[in-house]
Structures are given as structure tokens and as C-alpha cells.
């Protein structure tokens, strides 16, 4: 078994190595095309332009992957108590204080990242991850879902980014274009709207993924009821 695996890996390695070394020294690819159309994309960062405009469809599907994975994880964590330890047995006062200080800062940072994504590395994923991290931090320091956040609201937060993205896509079709064809003058606005809602969803998704995997549903519910 091991020998076979080793042989397979060696074979794949040699194949890959030869392929890499045989590739042309330079290959322009579609870089010149991206350069030429950057102005019409609504954003200044070429990577963001590819992600959100030229190949915005990839990103739409990638959000679908994210939402799908979340639903998948939630489908697995339904019922049956687990044996892994809950997120936090009790709130650590130091962590709790730190979290209370850090959380608003992180939200601010995420806002900056969202805005910066238009011309520099950044964007919804980075922004959403930071808020997500803030949420994880809060969860680790003993906070759980606030009572006013209903199950429906959680589901809505998870899916809103995808739904808004789909809505923009459909909107561009209703406006006479093709899927995700932004009119150049509206491109920037639309992209920012989508990015903002994506940030919300990505944050909600990351927090949900963490809580759903880290803490058995039953214990989470118990804590939610008793402490909040």
C-alpha cells in the first residue's frame, strides 16, 4: 500500500515537474485583456476586477459553495449530543474584557477592508472574516446567540449575501444585459452593495460554522436558554 502510494506520488511528481519545466518562459495569458478592460470594471484593483466583474460568476458560485457548506455542516450537527467539549465552559473574565474591547475595533477594521477592496487587496472575504473572528472571540469568551437573534434571523444572515448577489445578477438581466452585466456607471455601486451584504453573510457563516462544529447543539441551546 505504502509502496504503491509512493510510486504513485513519484509518478505524479515527475509528471508535474516535467510539465512545469517545459512550460513556456513567458505566457501573457489574459493579463493584457484585463489591463485593457480595467477601466470599465468599476474597480481599480485588477484582482478584484476579475473576482467581482470579469469572473464575477465564479465568485457567485463560490458564495454558493460557502452557503452550501454551511447548510451541510448544519445538517450534520442536528440532533444527538456530541462528546467534544463545548466552546467555553464558562466565561473567562480577562478574555471577556478583551473581547468587549476588541469586537468594536474589529468591526471598524472590517469596514475599512471592505472599502479598501476596491483599489487594494481586501474585500468582502477579508472583511467578513474579521467580523467572523470577532464573533468567534465573543463565543469563546462565553457569549452565545443573543435572544433577539431568532433562528430565522440567523438563517437570513447566512443566506442574505448570496440572495442579494443573485438579485443583482437577475437585475442586470432584467435591465437588458446578460447575467452580472453591470452598466459601467453603476458597476461600482452595485459591487459595493453586494460586497456589503456578502460581508454580513460571510461573518454569519463563519460564526455558524464555528459554533455548529465546536459545540453540540443541545449544550448550546441549554446555555442559550440559561445565560441569555
Amino acid at each position: 500500500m505504502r509502496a504503491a502510494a509512493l510510486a504513485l506520488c513519484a509518478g505524479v511528481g515527475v509528471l508535474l515537474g516535467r510539465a512545469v519545466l517545459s512550460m513556456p518562459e513567458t505566457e501573457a495569458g489574459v493579463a493584457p485583456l484585463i489591463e485593457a478592460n480595467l477601466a470599465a470594471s468599476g474597480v481599480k484593483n485588477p484582482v478584484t476586477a476579475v473576482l467581482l466583474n470579469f469572473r464575477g460568476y465564479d465568485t457567485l458560485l463560490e458564495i454558493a459553495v460557502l452557503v452550501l457548506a454551511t447548510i451541510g455542516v448544519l445538517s450534520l450537527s442536528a440532533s444527538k449530543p456530541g462528546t467534544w467539549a463545548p466552546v467555553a465552559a464558562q466565561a473567562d473574565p480577562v478574555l471577556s474584557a478583551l473581547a468587549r474591547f476588541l469586537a468594536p475595533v474589529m468591526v471598524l477594521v472590517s469596514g475599512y477592508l471592505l472599502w479598501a477592496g476596491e483599489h487594494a487587496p481586501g474585500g468582502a472575504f477579508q472583511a467578513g472574516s474579521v467580523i467572523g473572528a470577532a464573533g468567534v472571540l465573543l463565543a469563546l469568551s462565553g457569549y452565545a446567540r443573543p435572544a433577539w437573534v431568532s433562528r430565522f434571523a440567523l438563517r437570513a444572515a447566512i443566506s442574505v449575501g448570496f440572495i442579494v448577489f443573485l438579485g443583482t445578477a437577475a437585475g442586470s438581466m432584467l435591465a437588458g444585459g446578460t447575467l452580472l452585466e453591470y452598466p459601467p456607471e453603476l458597476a461600482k455601486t452595485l459591487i459595493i452593495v453586494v460586497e456589503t451584504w456578502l460581508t454580513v453573510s460571510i461573518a454569519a457563516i463563519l460564526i455558524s460554522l464555528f459554533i455548529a462544529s465546536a459545540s453540540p447543539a443541545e449544550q448550546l441551546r441549554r446555555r442559550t436558554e440559561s445565560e441569555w
Partner: protein
Amino acid sequence: MGDWVTQQLPALLILVPFTAAPFAYLLGAGYDRQTALLSAALTQPLAAFLALTVVQEGPVRYAIGGWGGPLGIELAADGFSATMVLVTSVVGLLVTVYGLRYFGDLERYRFFWPLWLFLWGSLNALFLSADIFNLYVCLELVSMSAVALVGLTLRREALVAAMRYMLAAILGSLFYLLGVALFYGAFGSVDMATLRETVRPDVAGQAGLALMTAGLVLKTALFPLHFWLPPAHSNAASPVSAVLSALVVKGSFFILVRLWIDVAQPEAFPGASVVLGVLGSSAIVWGSVQALRQERLKMLVAYSTVAQIGYLFLLFPLASGGGQAASDAWVGGIFHAVSHALAKSAMFLAAGIVLARFGHDRLEGLGGLSRRAPVTAMAFGLAGVTMMGLPPSGGFIAKWQLIKASIGSGQWWWAVVVVAGGLLAAAYMFRVVGPFFAREAEDLDDSDLDPGPSPVTMDGAALALALGALVLGVAGQPLIDLIMVGAPALVAGVTP
């Protein structure tokens, strides 16, 4: 309005299920089934309309974002794509209808609806994509929704099967992505139309194609990389099994065909198509022999899928020489994919009814089924006709074309495989169907568990799929015409 729909058809076919999916999740219990049914109902005319448009006006191209390839991503629907979208919508609708009663409003199964709608949307996206990187994302979407559906029952065997499937699927995707990377590095594009002009059989090109093929073969469960399929397909809930066997394995096969027949030219990669053909033949024999040895109905049907996948791969050696034989092989291969989709989903749906009624699917305990559940038994038996490739059935037309292509291209040995495979299929099908006619009443044990005749919608869905596979064998010409629209040059029937 009509014009608008015509222009937006490919996008709509993807958007409708993808929009329904988050709403089914968001609205939750009470509205998820309605959402799914609405989406299924909307998809039917769209898919039919796409097929009609393709037949009447030729292949459809759709530039997402208005950019067009190679800068942006294009959707493309030729006859092959439209065929696959159509069969997905037909199987999808009937599985949805079946699922309404099968899953009922059990809390545990409420995740079925969003996951299934995601799968449906992903399949449509995959069949319509003309961009090899975008196909990677589609593949991941298909695999992950399929895996999540396998794990839906939360039964231990199902979870382990789902895990095995997941690992195989991710690994397959990574191989594929690596191949995409090499293709981009060597040829500077991920747009299929551009690649068609630029792909060369040099070292990087061959390595890229080899890696993509390896990944896709793993995902299609071609022998000997089929290890993950039987447990996953047999342990999933039956509507899920139906979709997996009927549609999901065809997704990665679809990309393989695109790459080999359309983008790259098989003769540029000598020998490789023969290897695929040999693996396909081995799959036919191995899968059938394993099916003969199974003790559980769903396991047998799953191994039958392993065998039937083998036929699809005969397309590669048979098409590699071009000319009329390649054209015959093209029709035969795709026709097989379609009729297998219909028949196999019928079988899994029938098996689901058996499981639901009698609490087990042990073969030894299925005696006398034709008396206890005549419609279910009839659906299974009729689907078996297609599986054996006997007329009148879609499977027969497919095998006819494959045999014709074998003899026509001077590779008669594949014809022997096709005929032998049909006989093996008959052997394992009659292992199941024969005892249906047995007299002993005590054969169907646990009969006190029997909740009585299954709902008409469930029996009806299974029977409709089985009959569909039969009808293809008599009135299949429109489908053949559709398949040939915009067929790649190699298989378009032009003698080189």
C-alpha cells in the same frame, strides 16, 4: 417577454434552482417543499425551451457580464449540454415529486430541499459552462451537495460513505484544478473556445490533460477508482441515490467528454483513449460480477452503476478515429448516459419504496413482490430492460450505436464487450426480477410492518422514469437530432 426568456435561457436555468435553494433554507419547514416544487416546475419549460432553441437555431452562447471569453466566462449550450440539462430536469422533477411523500415533513430531512436545489443548480451550471476553471467550481458544488445529501440520513454507514466520497471528490477536484493550472500556464486561457484553438499535445498539455482526466475519472468512479461509489449510492436515502447514480456521475463524465472530444483531439494523445476504453470494459465486467454477488438490492443497483459507467468510456476509443463511426459512438455514448439516468433513477426510487414498505432490501426477502407491490415491481422490471440494453429501450439504441461504431471503426472487440455486458446485466437483473414472481408468501418477511400500498406519486414517479427510458427506444429520434446539434468536429460525421 418570450424573446427575453430565449436570450437569458442558460442563465435562467442556473438562477432558478440557485435562487430556490437559499429560500428553501431560509423559509424552512412548511415552505421548503413548495419552493422546491416551484423551482422544479419552472425548470421544466426552460429546459425544454433550451432544447428546442438548440435544435432550431443551433448552439447557444451566453457571455456572462457581457465580457465573453477569454476575459470573462461564457455559458454554452450545444446539443450535448441541452440534452444533459433536459434529462436533469426530467429526473429532477420526478425525484422532487417522489421526495415530497418520501421525506414527508420529517424534521431530520428538512435539509434535503436546499441541498437538492443546490445540486440541481450546480448540475445545470456544470452542463452549461464553457470555462474549465468555472467547471472546477461547479464540480466542487456538485460534489459537496452530493456528499451532504449522502450524509442526510445521519446513519453511521451513510456518514462513513459520505466521508469516503468527500475525500475522493476533493482529491479529484484538486487533480482537476492542477490540470487547469497547467493548461493556463501552457496555453494562456481557461476558456474552452480559445483552448480549442491553442491546445497542443506537448509535455505540459499532456500532463494537464492527464491530471484533469485522473481527477475526473476518480469523480466518475471509473474502475478501478470506483471504491467510493457503491457505499455512497447504496446508503444514501433512495431519492438521493437516484440523483447520484443518474446525474452526478454524469457531471464529471460530461467534462471528460468536453475535454477529450471537443477541446483536445484524441489522436493528439495516442493510446490514452484506448486506456479509457479498457478501463471502461473492466468496469463493465467487474461491476456486473460484483452486482451478481450482492445480497442487498440497493448495493446491487449501485454496482450496476459501476458497470454502466463503463459503457460511457467506450466512447473515447470509438470516437478517436473520426468519421461515421465516431458519430455513431457519440450518439451511443450520450444516449446511454440519458437512458441510464432515467432507468437507474427509476430503480433506486423503486428500491426506496421497497425499503419504506418492507423495512429491508435483502434480495432473498423480495420474493413475490409482483403481487405485493405490482407497480413498483413493474417499474423496476421495465427499468431493467434498459439496463440490459434490450429493445425497445433507450439502452438498446445506445448499445446498437456502440456496436455499430465498434464494427464500423474496425474495433470489433468493443462490440463483444457491449454484448457480453448486456448478458451480465441480464444475469444480475433477473437475479432480482425472477423472485418477484415467486409464490411463497412468507418470502416477504416483516410483512406486518407493511404500511400498505405506497403513495401513487412515488410509484408513479418510478414508473414514469422507467417508461421514459423505454419510450426513448422507440421515439428516440428527436433526442438523437438534439445530440448531434453542434457536435464537436471529430464526431460530427464528416469523414476526415
